[in-house]
């Protein structure tokens, strides 16, 4: 793994902050009735997807769950088009037909955004199958929530991936709760990274609040998968600050628990690292913050000015 340079540190900081600010704005727009339906925020989990982002190659594929805003931002997609999708506008990545949970960008090898818990796992495995079939040396990173780790198709996919040595990296984002059910109340044997062992899939546990730990583990795991040795599992321990979705008051956990996690906030960790090592000054970082706030605000403004899909759009894109 290459040593991180100043630009890398700033990239990490910027992307994590961008996700945080974007989600805060999404929350606000949801409250204003501009975003409807289900909306699952990524606040608190930013280190996971940004850490992985630092190890990804352009032609690698990504597939994830419905908590997907951060994954799209980390894939370098445009904030204004993501926000347009959340607000159901025609300029959204899915022309307003997918919404928060179902966003895609084929040109950026981002294959969703899937609303059914666990369904993205066989799909990601199939995308990896294609990489192998085509012999292109790319890999597919498939994100899985802790809740999906009790879903049968996940294990069917693990079996197939191991059997056929598919280049797929499974990244379990363990944010401690599947909706309102704590992991240890849902999973018998809560070490999720061990759940590939029966198939011979190696796994490891990673501190998902620390982006540098994520980068290190994701790099190593990515190289393993790319070398043709088959799948690999990372269980990244993280925490979502908000409820499962916007309508969740999160009464199943204590305020104290939340505060404890906030004390080891992933963005603060990066900030401290940067300042401690004199990579950038507080002032520089604040400048970045301001710039991002502006960027997110203009994305929201763009989205709210964007048109709703026309009535003809109702009947398009059913068949190619």
């Amino acid at each position, binding site marked *: 793994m290459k040593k991180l340079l100043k630009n890398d540190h700033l990239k990490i900081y910027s992307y994590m902050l961008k996700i945080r600010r974007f989600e805060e704005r999404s929350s606000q727009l949801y409250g204003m009735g501009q975003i409807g339906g289900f909306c699952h925020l990524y606040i608190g989990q930013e280190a996971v997807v940004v850490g992985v982002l630092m190890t990804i190659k352009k032609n690698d*594929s990504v*597939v994830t769950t419905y908590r997907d805003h951060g994954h799209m931002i980390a894939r370098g997609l445009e904030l204004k088009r993501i926000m347009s999708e959340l607000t159901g506008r025609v300029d*959204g*990545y*899915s*022309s*307003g*037909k*997918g919404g928060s949970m*179902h*966003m*895609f*960008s*084929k040109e950026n090898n981002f*294959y*969703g*955004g*899937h*609303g*059914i818990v666990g*369904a993205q*796992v*066989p*799909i*990601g*495995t*199939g*995308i*990896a*199958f*294609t*990489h192998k*079939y085509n012999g292109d040396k790319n890999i597919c990173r498939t994100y899985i929530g802790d809740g999906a780790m009790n879903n*049968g*198709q996940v294990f*069917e*996919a693990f*079996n*197939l991936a191991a*059997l056929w040595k598919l280049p797929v990296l499974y990244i379990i984002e363990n944010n401690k709760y599947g909706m309102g059910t704590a992991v240890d109340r849902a999973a018998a044997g809560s070490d999720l990274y061990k759940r590939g062992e029966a198939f011979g899939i190696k796994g490891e546990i990673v501190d998902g609040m620390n982006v540098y730990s994520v980068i290190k583990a994701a790099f190593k795991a990515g190289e393993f998968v790319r070398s043709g040795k088959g799948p690999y599992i990372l269980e990244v321990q993280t925490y979502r600050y908000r409820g499962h979705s916007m309508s969740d008051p999160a009464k199943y956990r204590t305020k104290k628990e939340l505060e404890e996690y906030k004390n080891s906030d992933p963005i603060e960790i990066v900030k401290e690292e940067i300042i401690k090592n004199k990579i950038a000054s507080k002032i520089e970082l604040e400048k970045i913050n301001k710039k991002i706030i502006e960027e997110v605000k203009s994305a929201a403004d763009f989205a709210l000015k964007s048109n709703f899909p026309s009535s003809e759009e109702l009947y*398009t*894109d*059913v*068949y*190619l």
Partner: protein
Amino acid sequence: MSIEILMPALSPTMTEGNLTKWLVKEGQEVKAGDVIAEIETDKATMEVEAVDEGFVEKLLFNEGDNNIPVNKPIALISGKRAPQSSKKHIKKENSKKTKRVEIIEPHQNQNKIAETEIAVDKEQITMRQAIRDTIAEEMRKDKKVFILGEEVAEYQGAYKVTQGLLEEFGDKRVIDTPISEQGFTGLAIGAAFKGLTPIVEFMTFNFSMQAIDQIINSAAKTLYMSGGQINCPIVFRGPNGAASQVAAQHSQDFSSWYSHVPGLKVVAPSTPLNAKGLLRSAIRDPNPVIFLENEILYGLKGEVSSDNNFKIPFGKANIARKGTDTTIVTYSIMLQKSLEAAKVLKNEFDLDVEVIDLQSLRPIDSDTIINSVKKTNRIITVEESWPFSSIGSEIVNIVQKNAFDYLDAPIIKVNSADVPMPYSSELEKLYLPQIEDIVKAVKEVNYI
């Protein structure tokens, strides 16, 4: 006294078998459990064991003899060692056009030889062969096409549809899966999103229910949910509907289940010809296609087009029989029964029915149905599925909306009984629409 060894029924739908190999000679001693022959069934090549002890008195068929009916004696075993008999009674002549097989009828005088003629017209192939050939032709043309499913490779297909594909295309493109429908269906859908063209074989469509979330929520909806970015060029195929005495969980017609879903196309071939034409269209279609085969039809022979680009477009019905008195709309295996009923109706009641074979269920060819009703003024639907919310129900809607004033009688739907499929053969017969049911319905709309 001799004991007859009969051609065994080795699968629920087997009606005849081919004698591929004798493993015993005349005069040889056999014990119960000894393998005496290899028989090729409609599904596989199986070994036949002797159930009694004794000496092989006579082998009644030659190796290579085909189409021997189930329950026909194939060998005689006697308790005593018999003198080695010569095989001069069994003669076999081959010609290019026809194959003459001489069969000894053991119940009659052993010297009397019965003769049957089996046509081996090169243009006539089975539905199984038609499907297999089309898959192979498309795989030759396009390297992105591959097939996966349970037993498709080394076993050569649970119903022998994929026979020989592994040998020709290798295990990269002909892939055995574990019994893991949701997993391999989701995997294939992911591969289709990424640009390949998978053909997913369900051993039967009954098992597709294990994967129906992936088919509907992922394959059918992603083009829409992605604003037109990600299409899913995939074919889900396999036998659908009742076979023979496999009972409730293995005998179900999924035509209306899948036809309900926007984003899916659904076709149901009834002949080798339209199986080829529709399957080629399915493989080349950029959308997910449900291709509903029928196990009982796999052995149906018919002419096919030798054109490697022959396609039947979706949404186009075929008028299988022209007529003026009543329209029968049907598809898949019920086409055959409807045509039989049409003969009865002509002979006994002088009614000329028009039989429309839908071929494609979604999109459906409304125009052909409506135009026919405008001519006949009477219509019934015939299908194997349950009656509630069936394809027939949709046709009733199409007709009442577009040809209401042309109807001289209420529409009758002929369906299976509205119960799970029973096991017992007598009940099974009652459950399924029969020729008499079709005749009765046509008479009813003609007030006969």
